[in-house]
């Protein structure tokens, strides 16, 4: 008898969402997730790590949640599997609805896992409490939401759906692109799997710095019938240099003879999916000659340059000078000085980089997860030697970006593979690849000296920041320029000298990460303001209020500000501050063990859009002959909510309800360029373009209907109508033009900024956003651990377009700020996965109290300002200030790991 025959009988099938599926000859040792996605096309089950760490792949096995990536098909045989696609059938439609209603899904990549984990809980406990929810969801990571709204949604899942309320500008409407995210239908970078598709895998440098040479590639390929192509830099038809800032473009898509950081791609193997994914590529014929590597940024200036045209490994330096710092400092009554050191921080979107490329006639189509479709098209076209018109970029749903998906990743590689093989080519980074090869937050070594006068007014700031920008330029120049401009925080200083330098090393490429270096600067400044306030004999919050910028004040760059909201944000914290201080004091007075409470505060300001560089957005709106508005919107929604917010703005300006709109794009063929989703610019810049296009269209409609501006538009049975004093009448829309529209309008908007001079004087941004956060912490002084109990976050949005989404940005920013403060530190070769690299889990999150403030900006659409990055900036310094309040020790290095704090407390 065969050993398995008996065991195998009756287990040759799996019940998936109620349907029996024969396993056939599928490998029983295969991951259940891989089988569900690739054999059954159930791509609602997401994979973020293939290691059990992210929980995105959670499915129910006989009702119990398991990671599908860790479940061998053989163990699911004969059992029942429920995936997100089967939730509805499992009676969990209300849970899905609650996720939408509460804004519990942002990018949505974690949503299927969250839903499945929650469904398992609700099936056994229909009315769970918060602690039960936290335990049940603890195995699923979310990088976007800060978990607060997810918990709210699960607690509220029993409630039936309610009819939508007001949908106007300012209304709390659920995200328009939400439904596919809660049903598993949203298609992310890895979810498009064309039938004849090849798989692309990269060969990457195991060394931070090494020369390399290939062996006999042809022979290696020939010995492997599944290999369709092996491609190296020699096969790249165009300019093998890409970069987000064209004058600094320096990064090869495939390295040429020398790798400059660990994880840099040197070749790709393109082959049939199954065998290519199973292949062990460790025998790929490449010989490495390791070179001395610069891993310590302090040694970079004296070391041999990585790029010969950048002496002292200096990529760029940015500087702002105003007033006489030396004199002001000399005259100051109180001066404090200190340093701050920060680490590489990995964005860790739960969706690794992924995409597929194919040829449509002579058009190369690239469908990938991205934040910058137009930049991708142009850079990929350049690398592949194609005119930009022959490349079309269609962003997939994006499972988190936070800055890392602004730079190219898979695009040139799958594009090259598709061009060379003529077949669709797909690439999905493993988690480790994603961590090794993509950009990080710039580690900084910062130093500041701050002076205040007798009355506690800030008089002088001397600020210096040295950033490790890694092997290639990426966004290093932006960081070096943005940081000095923001060095003062939202405070008035009489004299300022601020300088930042981005220095190359053989470390990972540092790029854009929510805040472009500003959070590092704020960590240094804000943690020194506390001792300074005390030296001045002032309360720490009042000290900040006293020094907060006001309307009409000039910044360190000499820009006179309007719509300044920092004072209101800080003042909004006053009652919370008093309560929190009293509570902490009372707790500490009676504490007998090692626990100490503390309260801290920190502020932020942040310029929306590129620093002194053009960054226009163009929006097109058409009206079909039936009267329906169609919004061509090229801004990628990476979870932050632009699809919804831009539509709300357009709806308000046009005068039709949000539900009337059809959304098109983003797609470089179908939508005009709305620039990149970065620098907190979409609500402001694309919002302005959308408002302008909608107003232009409204003017056309009113002209056609012979109505005045006070007329009301409506869309009903009879098509598009206007109502004014003369009554209601249909708008006589003509027939469709070649674009399918009866009417259309296209408008652009570019922020009015000016270049900065050698002293950093000028108008770098047209709009700023403002915020202040207060952290309450409990420090275990024996173990050096910090528990953040509550964050009260006041943010000035100018005009709140959608409070639900705004709160989500705040909560998510706080989660990342908490990670920056307490746990996140990327170390090449040591933390290249999500169990060694720690991001906050549901249990690490404090109670968050968002306070939305509206000080209209004269330039923003309906007064609105950006928010995306702002929310992260004050969190880490507020936490550190609270730790200092609790312990008396000012931490000068993040992450403040337990052993570091314990050491400092000795």
């Amino acid at each position, binding site marked *: 008898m065969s050993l398995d025959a008996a065991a195998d009988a009756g287990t040759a099938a799996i019940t998936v969402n109620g349907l029996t599926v024969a396993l056939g000859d599928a490998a029983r040792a295969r991951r259940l997730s*891989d089988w569900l996605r690739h054999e059954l096309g159930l791509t609602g089950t997401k994979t973020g790590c293939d290691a059990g760490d992210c929980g995105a792949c959670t499915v129910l096995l006989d009702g119990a949640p398991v990671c599908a990536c860790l479940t061998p098909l053989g163990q699911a045989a004969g059992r029942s599997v429920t995936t997100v696609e089967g939730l509805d059938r499992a009676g969990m439609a209300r849970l899905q609805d609650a996720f939408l209603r509460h804004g519990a899904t942002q990018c949505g990549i974690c949503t299927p896992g969250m839903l499945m984990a929650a469904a398992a809980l609700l099936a056994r406990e229909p009315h769970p409490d918060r602690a039960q929810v936290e335990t049940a969801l603890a195995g699923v990571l979310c990088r976007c939401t800060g978990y607060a709204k997810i918990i709210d949604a699960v607690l509220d899942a029993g409630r039936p759906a309610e009819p939508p309320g007001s949908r106007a500008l300012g209304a709390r409407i659920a995200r328009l692109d939400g439904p596919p995210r809660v049903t598993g239908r949203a298609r992310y970078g890895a979810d498009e799997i064309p039938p004849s598709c090849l798989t692309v895998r990269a060969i990457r440098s195991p060394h931070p710095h090494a020369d390399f040479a290939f062996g006999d590639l042809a022979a290696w390929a020939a010995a492997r019938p599944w290999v369709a192509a092996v491609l190296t830099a020699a096969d790249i038809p165009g300019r093998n240099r890409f970069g987000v800032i064209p004058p600094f473009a320096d990064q090869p898509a495939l390295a040429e003879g020398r790798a400059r950081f660990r994880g840099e791609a040197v070749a790709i193997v393109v082959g049939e999916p199954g065998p290519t994914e199973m292949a062990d590529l460790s025998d790929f014929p490449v010989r490495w000659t390791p070179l001395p590597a610069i891993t310590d940024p302090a040694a970079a200036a004296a070391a041999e340059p990585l790029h010969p045209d950048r002496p002292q490994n200096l990529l760029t330096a940015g500087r702002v000078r105003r007033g006489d710092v030396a004199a002001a400092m000399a005259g100051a009554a109180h001066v404090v000085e200190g340093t701050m050191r920060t680490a590489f921080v990995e964005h860790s979107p739960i969706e690794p980089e992924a995409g597929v490329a194919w040829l449509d006639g002579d058009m190369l189509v690239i469908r990938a997860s991205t934040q910058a479709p137009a930049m991708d098209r142009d850079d990929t076209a350049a690398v592949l030697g194609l005119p930009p018109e022959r490349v079309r970029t269609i962003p997939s749903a994006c499972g988190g970006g936070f800055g890392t998906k602004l730079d190219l990743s898979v695009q040139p590689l799958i594009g090259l593979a598709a061009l060379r093989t003529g077949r669709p080519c797909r690439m999905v980074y493993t988690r480790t690849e994603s961590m090794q090869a993509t950009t990080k937050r710039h580690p900084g070594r910062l130093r500041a000296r701050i002076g205040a006068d007798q009355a506690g007014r800030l008089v002088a700031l001397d600020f210096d920041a040295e950033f490790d920008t890694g092997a290639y330029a990426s966004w290093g120049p932006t960081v070096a320029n943005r940081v000095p401009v923001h060095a003062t925080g939202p405070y008035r200083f009489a004299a300022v000298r601020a300088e930042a330098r981005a220095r190359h090393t053989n470390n990972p490429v540092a790029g854009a990460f929510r805040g472009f270096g500003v959070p590092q600067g704020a960590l240094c400044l804000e943690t020194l303001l506390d001792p300074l306030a005390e030296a001045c004999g002032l309360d720490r919050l009042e000290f900040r209020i006293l020094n907060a910028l006001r309307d009409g004040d000039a910044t360190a760059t000499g820009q006179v500000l309007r719509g300044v909201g920092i004072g209101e944000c800080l003042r909004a914290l006053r009652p919370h501050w008093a309560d929190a201080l009293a509570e902490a004091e009372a707790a500490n007075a009676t504490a007998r063990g090692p626990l100490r409470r503390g309260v801290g505060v920190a502020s932020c300001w942040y310029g929306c859009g590129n620093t002194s560089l053009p960054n226009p957005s163009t929006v097109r709106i058409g009206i079909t002959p039936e009267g329906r508005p169609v919004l061509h919107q090229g801004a990628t929604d990476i979870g932050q909510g632009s699809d919804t917010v831009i539509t709300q703005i357009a709806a308000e300006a046009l005068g039709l309800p949000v539900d009337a709109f059809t959304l098109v794009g983003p797609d470089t063929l179908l939508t005009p360029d709305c620039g990149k989703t970065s620098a907190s610019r979409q609500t402001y810049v694309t919002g302005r373009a959308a408002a302008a296009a909608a107003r232009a269209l409204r003017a056309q409609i009113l002209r056609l209907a012979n109505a005045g501006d006070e007329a009301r538009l409506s869309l009903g049975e009879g098509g598009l109508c206007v109502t004014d004093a003369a009554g209601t009448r249909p708008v006589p829309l003509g027939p469709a033009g070649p674009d399918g529209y009866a009417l259309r309008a296209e408008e652009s908007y570019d922020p009015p900024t000016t270049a900065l001079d050698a002293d950093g004087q000028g108008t770098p941004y047209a709009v700023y956003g403002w915020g202040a956060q207060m952290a309450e912490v409990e420090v275990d002084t024996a173990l050096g651990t910090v528990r953040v109990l509550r964050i009260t976050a006041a943010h000035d949005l100018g005009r709140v377009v959608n409070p639900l989404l705004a709160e989500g940005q705040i909560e998510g920013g706080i989660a990342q700020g908490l990670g920056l403060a307490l746990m996140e530190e990327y170390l090449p070769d040591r933390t290249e996965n999500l169990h060694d690299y720690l991001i906050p889990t549901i249990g690490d999150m404090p109670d968050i109290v968002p306070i939305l403030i509206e000080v209209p900006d004269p330039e923003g659409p309906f007064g609105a300002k950006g928010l995306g990055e702002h929310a992260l900036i004050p969190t880490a310094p507020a936490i550190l200030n609270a730790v200092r309040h609790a312990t008396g020790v000012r931490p000068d290095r993040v992450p403040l790991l337990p052993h570091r704090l314990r050491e400092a407390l000795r």
Partner: protein
Amino acid sequence: MDPQTLDPQAAYHRPGDLDAALRLMAALRPTVLAGGTDLFPATQRPALTGPVLDITAIAGLSGIAETDGGMRIGAATRWSAIAGAPLPAALEALRQAAREVGAVQIQNAGTIGGNLCNASPAADGVPPLLACGAEVELASLRGRRRLPLAAFITGPRRTALAPDEIMTAVILPRAGLAGRSAFLKLGARRHLVISIAMVAVRVECAGGRIGRAAIAVGACSAVARRLPAVEAALAGQPLEAPVIDPAAVAAALAPIDDARASAEYRSLAAAELIGRALAMAIGPEREAA
């Protein structure tokens, strides 16, 4: 190596009885697969490469039972089953550890035997079992044998398991089931975290004093270990305020510096955690006294 195709069905074996499994072990030397929560993360491939012996269908390999000599926990028992089982107070530490292994998804798949055979220095299952003097039962066609857990784990990721052996059970001798226990784990975040340090403490109390104490510490040496000197110093101490000597704890450990913590911190944290776990374990005794 030539890549495996995706359909080596024959390379995956899931026998229903131990005898068949042991014959496969002898013949094929397959990779033993239990919950897969250590095996799958170790590869980036979409499938494990064979041959694979899945032990989770073997009759008698899962479940917790009282025996004449004490208790027996099948090697393929999942952490969630341990967390939910009625266990004596001496195994409270094991239950607490079970609830902290990863998160519910991991607990629903991962097994106690897998945790021990994987032999990570940070395996949370080890200290609670060491504190109970646990033994492991190993089986092959050659026969069955028992080893104290402390002898089974020979180094980081190294065990005394012979290539043809399967771990069949964890055995808890009656003597180790006396008293109460507690487990504490320290990491840089709340859930899903590899321990910086973890401790299990089991105490037997009598007459308002500590009678016997068993203390095990993990992640602070290459292999989790008992701290006999610290245990001895606790015997006879009053329940009110037992004193732990941090120097004695440090002397008994050999921690390393790594990305998660410094060696010095680990020793210090271990001493602190021992004190707290001890307080948790004797708390009910103190109330009763």
